C-alpha cells in the first residue's frame, strides 16, 4: 500500500520506541472461533494494539495523534481511528490547515474513503472553498466519476461557494470524455442551482445547443439525450415543439449511426402528438433491419423497430407500443 513519505523511512516497531515505553499494548480479541477470520500483518497488529491502549485510556496527546496517523496509513477505512483522531485534534487545537494536507495525502491513495471529506472543511469554513474544489478536481483527474467526490464537490459549492468556474469545468470534463455521466449531472446541477447563471429558463437555449452538439458527436451516448429531456422538465410540449429536437433525430438516423436513442426520442415526440415529417418517417424505415415491420401506425412501427435493434430490452419496447396515445 502506498504510504507517501512514511514509506521512505524503515518502520521502527512500537515496542522499540522509547516514547512508548510506558504503554502496555492491548491485543485484538476476536472471540474463540472467529466467524469471518481476518489475517493481520505484524506491523498492523502492533500499531493497532498500541492504538487500542491509548483509545481505552482516552489519551488525547501528540503521540496519540501521531499513532492515529500511522494507523490510518495502514488502513484509512477505520472509523474508530478517525473518530478518535478528531477528538485529539479538538483537544490539542491543532492547525487544521495541516490536517487538510494530511487528509489530501490519504485521499490521493484511497479516493473512496468516506469519512474524511467533510469534517475538516466545515471547521475551516469558506476560506478553503477553492482548495476543496481543487482537491476534488485532483481526484477526478484519476477517476472522473468518483461518486463520493462528486457528492463532496456539490456540498462545497452549496455550502462554501466557488460557482464561478463550474460550468467551464464541466466543459473541460466533457471534452475529456463526452460519456462522463457525472459531468453531465454536474452540468445540470450548475445550470439549475448556480446563483450566477440565472436559472434553467435563461440557460435552456444554449444548453440545448450544447446537448445537440454532443449527440451529433456520439449519438450512442445516453447522457445528452437524457440531459435534453431534463432541460425541458415540466414542459414537455416545449421539447416537442423545439424543431432542433426532431432535427437532431433526423440527422442521426440519416447518418445510419447507432440509433436506439434517436428512435426512442422520436417515440417520445410521437407520444406527445408531434407530427413527423415524411423525411423522418423515411429515415426511420431506412434504419430498420429486415424483415421490416409492417405496422401501419408509425409510432407502433418505431416500437417494432426498437425491438429489433435493441433486443435486450424487447419487453420494454413491447410495453411502449401498448402505451402509445391515440394518434390524431
Amino acid at each position: 500500500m502506498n504510504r507517501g513519505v512514511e514509506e521512505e523511512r524503515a518502520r521502527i516497531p512500537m515496542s522499540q520506541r522509547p516514547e512508548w515505553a510506558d504503554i502496555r499494548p492491548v491485543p485484538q480479541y476476536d472471540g474463540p472461533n472467529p466467524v469471518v477470520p481476518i489475517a493481520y500483518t505484524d506491523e498492523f497488529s502492533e500499531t493497532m494494539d498500541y492504538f487500542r491502549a491509548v483509545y481505552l485510556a482516552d489519551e488525547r496527546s501528540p503521540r496519540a495523534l501521531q499513532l492515529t496517523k500511522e494507523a490510518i496509513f495502514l488502513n484509512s477505512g477505520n472509523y474508530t481511528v478517525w473518530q478518535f483522531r478528531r477528538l485529539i485534534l479538538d483537544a490539542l487545537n491543532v492547525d487544521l490547515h495541516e490536517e487538510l494536507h494530511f487528509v489530501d495525502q490519504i485521499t490521493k491513495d484511497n479516493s473512496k474513503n468516506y469519512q474524511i471529506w467533510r469534517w475538516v472543511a466545515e471547521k475551516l469554513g469558506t476560506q478553503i472553498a477553492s482548495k476543496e474544489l481543487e482537491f476534488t478536481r485532483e481526484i477526478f483527474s484519476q477517476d472522473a466519476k468518483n461518486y463520493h467526490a462528486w457528492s463532496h464537490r456539490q456540498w462545497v459549492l452549496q455550502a462554501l461557494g466557488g460557482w464561478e468556474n463550474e460550468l467551464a469545468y464541466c466543459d473541460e470534463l466533457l471534452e475529456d470524455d463526452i460519456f462522463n455521466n457525472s459531468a453531465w449531472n454536474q452540468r445540470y446541477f450548475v445550470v439549475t442551482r448556480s446563483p450566477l447563471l440565472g436559472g434553467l429558463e435563461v440557460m435552456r437555449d444554449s444548453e440545448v445547443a450544447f446537448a445537440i452538439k454532443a449527440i451529433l458527436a456520439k449519438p450512442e451516448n445516453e447522457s445528452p439525450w437524457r440531459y435534453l429531456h431534463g432541460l425541458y422538465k415540466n414542459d414537455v410540449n416545449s421539447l416537442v415543439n423545439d424543431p432542433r429536437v426532431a432535427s437532431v433525430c433526423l440527422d442521426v438516423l440519416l447518418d445510419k449511426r447507432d440509433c436506439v436513442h434517436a428512435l426512442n426520442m422520436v417515440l417520445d415526440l410521437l407520444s406527445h402528438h408531434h407530427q413527423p415529417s415524411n423525411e423522418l418517417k423515411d429515415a426511420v424505415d431506412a434504419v430498420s433491419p429486415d424483415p421490416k415491420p409492417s405496422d401501419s401506425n408509425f409510432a407502433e412501427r418505431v416500437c417494432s423497430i426498437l425491438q429489433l435493434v435493441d433486443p435486450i430490452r424487447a419487453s420494454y419496447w413491447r410495453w411502449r407500443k401498448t402505451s402509445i396515445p391515440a394518434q390524431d
Partner: protein
Amino acid sequence: MAELMTEKHVKYILSVEKKKDDFESVVMEHLRVNGAYWGLTTLDILGKLDAVDQDEVVSWIMQCQHESGGFGGNIGHDPHILYTLSAIQVLALFDKIDVLDVENVANYIASLQNEDGSFSGDMWGEIDTRFSYIAICSLALLHRLDKINVERAVKYIVSCKNLDGGFGCTPGAESHAGQIFCCVGALAITGSLHHVDKDLLGWWLCERQVKSGGLNGRPEKLPDVCYSWWVLSSLIMIDRVHWIDKGKLVNFILDCQDKENGGISDRPDDAVDVFHTYFGVAGLSLLEFPGLKAIDPAYALPVDVFAAASNHDGMN
C-alpha cells in the same frame, strides 16, 4: 446454462483464505459485521446456514454493540448505522432479534434523524440516502418505525429524486443504482412508492443492462455483479423486472463464479470476495434460479426470515 457451484461457494465462505499479509482481509477488519451479513445471508439462500455455530455468531455480534445501542463494525469499534442494520439482519437470520434491547437500538437509530428528515450515519454527521434506507429497514425489522418522523424521512428521499426518475445520495447528486435501491426500498417499506415514476425509473434501470447481459450502476460504467442486486431488486419493487433480459443476466452472474475455488467476483475473471458472492447469489435468487431460497427485495433477507421477524411482537 452454466452451473451454480453451490458447494464451492459454501466452502469459500466458511473458510475465507487466511493468507498472511492479505491486504483485503486487513482492510475488511473494521467492517466484519457487514461481512458476516453478506456471508451468512448467502449461506441461508444456499440452504446451508446450519454450517455455522449460531451461538458464537450471536455472541460475537452482541459484543459489537456500543452502549449507545448502535453497532460497530467489529468489537471495540465505534457505532455506525451501517453496521447496526447488518447486525439486526444477522440476528434476524437466526430468529434472535429478541436478544436485543429493542428500545436501546431503536433510540440510537432515531437519534440519527435530522430536522430535514435525512439521516446521518453516525455522530459525525455524514448524510446519505443509504442511511435513510438503513434506518427505515432497521426500524421496520424491529417494529419501531414509530420512533422516527416517517413523513419527513420520505420527504427527504423524494427531494433526492432526479429528472431521470432515479435517486442520488443527496439532492442533486447523480442517479446511481445503489442509491436507487436504498430510496426505492425505503419508499416501499413505508408504503410510499406512489412517489416513484415507475415507468421512467424502470426504463433508466433496464438501460443498465449491457451487451454481455450484466448490469452497470450508471450510464457508461462497467457491469458489476453487485448491480444484479441493486438494479434487480429496484425493478422488482416497482414491478418492472420483465423489462430486462433475465436469461442473459443469469449467464453473466454465473460467468463471474470462480469455478475452481468458489466465490463470485464483480465481473468475469476478476478476484472473488464475500461482497460480490452475496450479491451474485442474491441476484440469482431474485431471478428465481432453481434451488435457492427466495429473498425479499426490500429487506434483503430471505422471505421466510422476514416473515418470522414480522410475526414477532405485534407492535408496529
